[in-house]
């Protein structure tokens, strides 16, 4: 059992969170930040920066990274396809389309996360309905429905961008597409928490069947797995986690696809270790990336999705190709 590796990943995650607390437009000494952390109810600029700006950012980026990575591991395991990510459920495309249209229609910005969540989840239900066969989910249909519906809604986003009358509207839409946690606070996290918890609870229920699904649907059935039920659990969990993430940070690509691969290399493919490892690795990666996104071109911010692709993709390719050569 590689369970002892989990505390090591946890330490790494905490390190990323600490680095992210230090990063930002205004340079604050670590000791000052520590003092502010010890006194959450203190007043003053530093306390405000630490407790109202940086802490929610750190928490949100950790939660988003963890949720997307768990969703990716669930879906890759269920479909036995290493190339899928949680956005296959249509969540991100549906949310992006709704938000793009809402921005053009002039809907107030604070309403957008909730709107994105509802639209994302609604799209996931549509994709699931299209993928349904008998009492279960057909893997090929799910992939086909996910890709088709996502393509359709991506076209809606493009249409909205082309038709957007102001630069501000176009930039608001692009910020969602590139992934950003700018302006998010505790309130957003409180909104998303119940859905994240529900998604994690469903993932916990799916962990054991997911282990049996590694040897194929037929064999999983013969060892007593209710495969149909497991598939719906996984789809519901992934959709909730992805929708909550999209509501919090827009489209953060790459995490849901790549982190499960990295975590699998560290702890193996048993879901009981893989899912917690994904949560921690995803949290570490996103928090670290958000810290760089905030500080590299301060006071302006880079979209975290873009940054993740810039850093993560070459690192991942190196890791994979190097390991293959070594193997």
């Amino acid at each position, binding site marked *: 059992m590689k369970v002892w590796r989990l505390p090591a990943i946890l330490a790494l995650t905490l390190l990323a969170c600490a680095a992210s607390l230090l990063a930002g437009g205004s340079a604050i000494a670590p000791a000052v930040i520590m003092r502010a952390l010890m006194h959450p109810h203190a007043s003053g600029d530093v306390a405000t920066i630490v407790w109202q700006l940086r802490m929610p950012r750190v928490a949100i980026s950790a939660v988003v990274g963890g949720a997307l990575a768990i969703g990716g591991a669930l879906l890759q*395991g269920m479909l*036995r396809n290493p190339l899928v990510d949680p956005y296959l459920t249509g969540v991100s495309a549906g949310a992006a389309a709704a938000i793009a249209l809402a921005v053009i229609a002039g809907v107030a910005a604070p309403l957008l996360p909730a709107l994105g969540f509802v639209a994302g989840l609604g799209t996931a239900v549509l994709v699931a309905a299209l993928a349904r066969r008998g009492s279960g989910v057909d893997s090929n249909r799910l992939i086909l429905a996910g890709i088709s519906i996502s393509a359709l809604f991506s076209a809606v986003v493009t249409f909205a961008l082309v038709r957007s009358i102001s630069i501000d509207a176009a930039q608001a839409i692009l910020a969602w597409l590139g992934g950003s946690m700018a302006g998010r606070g505790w309130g957003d996290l409180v909104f998303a928490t119940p859905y994240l918890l529900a998604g994690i609870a469903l993932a916990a229920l799916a962990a054991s069947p997911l282990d049996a699904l*590694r*040897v194929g*649907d*037929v064999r999983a059935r013969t060892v007593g797995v209710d495969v149909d039920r497991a598939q719906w659990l996984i789809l519901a969990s992934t959709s909730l986690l992805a929708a909550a993430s999209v509501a919090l940070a827009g489209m953060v690509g790459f995490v849901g696809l790549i982190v499960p691969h990295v975590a699998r290399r560290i702890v193996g493919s048993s879901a009981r270790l893989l899912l917690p490892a994904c949560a921690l690795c995803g949290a570490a990666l996103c928090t670290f990336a958000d810290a760089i996104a905030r500080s590299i071109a301060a006071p302006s911010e880079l979209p975290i999705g873009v940054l993740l692709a810039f850093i993560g993709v070459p690192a991942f390719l190196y890791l994979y190709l190097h390991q293959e050569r070594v193997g």
Partner: protein
Amino acid sequence: MIALEQVTIGIGARPLVREIDAEIRAGEFVAVLGPNGVGKTTLLRAMCGIRPVISGHIALDGTPLRNLSPTARARAIAFVTSDDSMIETLRVRDVVAIGRFPHHPWWEWNANAQDDAAIEHALRAVHFEAEAERLFSTLSSGERQRVWIAMGLAQATPVLLLDEPTSHLDVRVAHEILALLRNLAREGRTIVCVLHDLNDAAAYADRLMLLGCERMLACDVADRVLAPELIERAYGIAVTRVETPQGPRVFAAVRA
């Protein structure tokens, strides 16, 4: 005991084999024979409860299969199939361990001593204990076959259904596996096994269930089932029957 009563099986609504009536007793080794596409695999899947029948009833020790929960079913019946569908980098032991799934509630995380013993026993039975730590993806198709059989054995069920367990195996390993199944039947396990080699079936099984022409043509001892006219009816090929000290054997009549 497995009882099939007027069972019609098929793909969707299209029947493959109609109105099978058969009883397979505990401790019996039954070989299922028939041409490609006749419905042997479909019958096995129906017998382990993962595929519904079009009509009729299948019961295990008097309880209809459909009344059993998936877990109860998996504690009673194991099904060994050789189709590969996995991407994960699993070790041989991990694959065999999945056979222990029905013996655990979902929240139980770690394997207990009973699991370890069952996994060891299963690996020894297929002579693969030395390869337990190998990556499954590095195995040949014959070696994979042995791992799938070990997974079925680790499930520790009174009934074991096997779909072509000797495909991909060389002649020595194939006979070792068939002898193992024979021994398991002697110890009281019920074995139902799809085979293609009629003479292997005659050599190892107690009874042969012959499917063909959308019917169960026979379910009897080898002496009665290996009748040339019956074999020709099922497979559409003429055979010559030869009596040997081990019993009857059949050979396809080769046209020069």
